[in-house]
């Protein structure tokens, strides 16, 4: 495999930088900022696989994030098992749940799938708020020795793994099939692609990753209400990051996540919290109407215009 140093070097550089951040600073706000950005990268890449590559707009992603988070939390804090086991358990739980609802879910086509997944996550949210109304708090012993560093490195690891996973999917036979499904499901079916299987596999990978991300959040959060793990914001944030960044691209969710967290920080200084969502909402609409490949497309176009090349989009 030929190594393109021009592409590899900056990536290695960024990784080295990210590895050194917690060694250089111990400011919690900076570390939290990085942690959240990396978490969002992992979460949005997980959605990118089902929503971006397979073209199935799954608005119930929070259900799997939450399932992974809640399971991991319980295995770790309530059953006292080591965290790595809990993390794996959470991801497995999320995937099992996906297998359970995956087949019936994909019987719904198009917008019915979108609404159906949204409703499913909403049901879970309501149920968990009702049966577990109390906040789940880390025991005092853990709070005393709480360090942000392992959380940081864990989210860095998974951000990298999620990007690698998306890269792998995009280059694989699965990825080709998914793109065919995304373009025209009927045509893909007619040309021999087993669309159900492809969608299901993408779904399982996506939910496994979402479950892992949820587990990381469970490791990070000092206290939260379990229902809050299923809040639609976990889905919607991922969706808008992927769309605005560049749906179905590899870099898109990365750019989107950085931009998202930066914007959130910046706007919260002057405006009531949540305005970053409104800004992204506007960008989201612009992307849907005019710029289907999101910021990636915009950057490519600008770069080509500046460099005087023809505006051919290479994704």
């Amino acid at each position, binding site marked *: 495999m030929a190594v393109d140093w021009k592409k590899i070097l900056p990536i290695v550089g960024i990784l080295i930088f990210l590895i050194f951040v917690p060694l250089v600073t111990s400011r919690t706000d900076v570390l939290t900022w990085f942690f959240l950005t990396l978490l969002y990268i992992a979460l949005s890449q997980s959605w990118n696989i089902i929503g971006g590559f397979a073209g199935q*707009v799954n608005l119930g992603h929070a259900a799997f994030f939450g399932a992974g988070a809640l399971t991991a939390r319980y295995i770790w804090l309530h059953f006292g098992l080591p965290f790595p086991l809990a993390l794996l358990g959470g991801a497995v739980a999320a995937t099992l749940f996906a297998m359970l609802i995956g087949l*019936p879910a994909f*019987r*719904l086509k*198009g*917008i*019915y799938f*979108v*609404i*159906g997944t*949204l*409703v*499913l996550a*909403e*049901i879970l949210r*309501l*149920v968990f708020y*009702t049966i577990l109304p109390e906040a789940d708090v880390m025991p005092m012993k853990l709070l005393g020795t709480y360090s942000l560093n392992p959380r940081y490195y864990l989210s860095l690891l998974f951000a990298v793994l999620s990007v690698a996973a998306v890269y792998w999917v995009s280059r694989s036979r699965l990825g080709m099939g998914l793109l065919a499904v995304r373009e025209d499901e009927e045509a893909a079916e007619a040309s021999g692609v087993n669309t159900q299987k492809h969608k299901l596999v993408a779904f399982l990978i996506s939910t496994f990753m979402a479950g892992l991300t949820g587990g990381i959040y469970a490791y990070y959060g000092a206290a939260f209400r379990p229902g809050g793990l299923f809040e*639609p914001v976990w889905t*919607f944030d991922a*969706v*808008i990051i992927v*769309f605005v960044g560049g749906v179905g691209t590899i870099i898109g969710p990365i750019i989107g996540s950085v931009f998202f967290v930066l914007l959130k920080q910046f706007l919260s200084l002057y*405006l*009531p919290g*949540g*305005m970053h*969502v*409104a800004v*992204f*909402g*506007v960008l*989201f*609409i612009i992307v*849907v*109407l005019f710029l289907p490949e999101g910021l990636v497309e915009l950057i490519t176009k600008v770069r080509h215009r500046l460099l005087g090349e023809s505006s051919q989009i290479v994704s």
Partner: protein
Amino acid sequence: MFGLVAQTLVNGINVGAMYGLIAVGLSLTFGVMKILNVAHGEFLMVGGYIAFWLFTLIGLDPFLCLPFVGVILFVLGALSYKLLFSGLAKFHEEAKVKNSLLVAFGLFLIFPQIARVLWTSDERAITPAYSGESFAILGIRVGYVPLAGLLVAVVIIFGLHLFLTKTYFGKSVRGTTENWKAAKLMGINVERTYLITFAVGAALAGIAGILVGMMQTVTPDMGMPWTLKALIVLVLAGIGSVGGAFFAGLILGIVEAVSAIFIGPYTMALGLVIFLLILMFRPQGLFGKE
């Protein structure tokens, strides 16, 4: 025993009237132009807030606000359609449907944040002097506000039904619903029909918002739960019948009121479960034709 059952029914119908009203608006939009407007509840929210403003700032009785809110939301709906959704005409059928849902999703992200800036996250209620008053019939409490709300809803739905069946434009709306290509070939300006239908849908949602503001509260995030309610009613009723949507709304209200007695906090979830089941097994709903 009779008292409990009857009271529950009455309570259910009170809420059901609002469900029916908001569902009808969504049914129109989805039926005519196949746009599933997931921001439909946002129009309800805006209507509620405008009525709140009119009531608290100039003391206008909320029932008198109805025409104003109707007009404002009509304009807002028309603008939204013109600026956002008509730009989707360039896509082919399937992409158009999917992208209009996404565009509506974008609106859903934007509206609550603007509402938060304008009105803060505090719960607002529209409480004219007669708010809590009620009278009793056969031992059942009937609130004046819910009763008036029910009457308003019935009048509006009936008016809409007459409009759709007796006027030329109303018939052209129904024709466009059944076959937009053929409608074009009749000389019907389908784009303008879409614009007006969407605007009417928004206006209906806004009016429902006034009722919600009086019977419950108005918050910036109330849009999505109400959109979901409208969706549940729609899937119960199926597309194509204005009266069917209204009755399905009443049914949902009653079902919720009854189940609240037995499963209390899970009532909302129950509605959503019913929704999923019907979506999977009987997508044309109880009244719809397939």
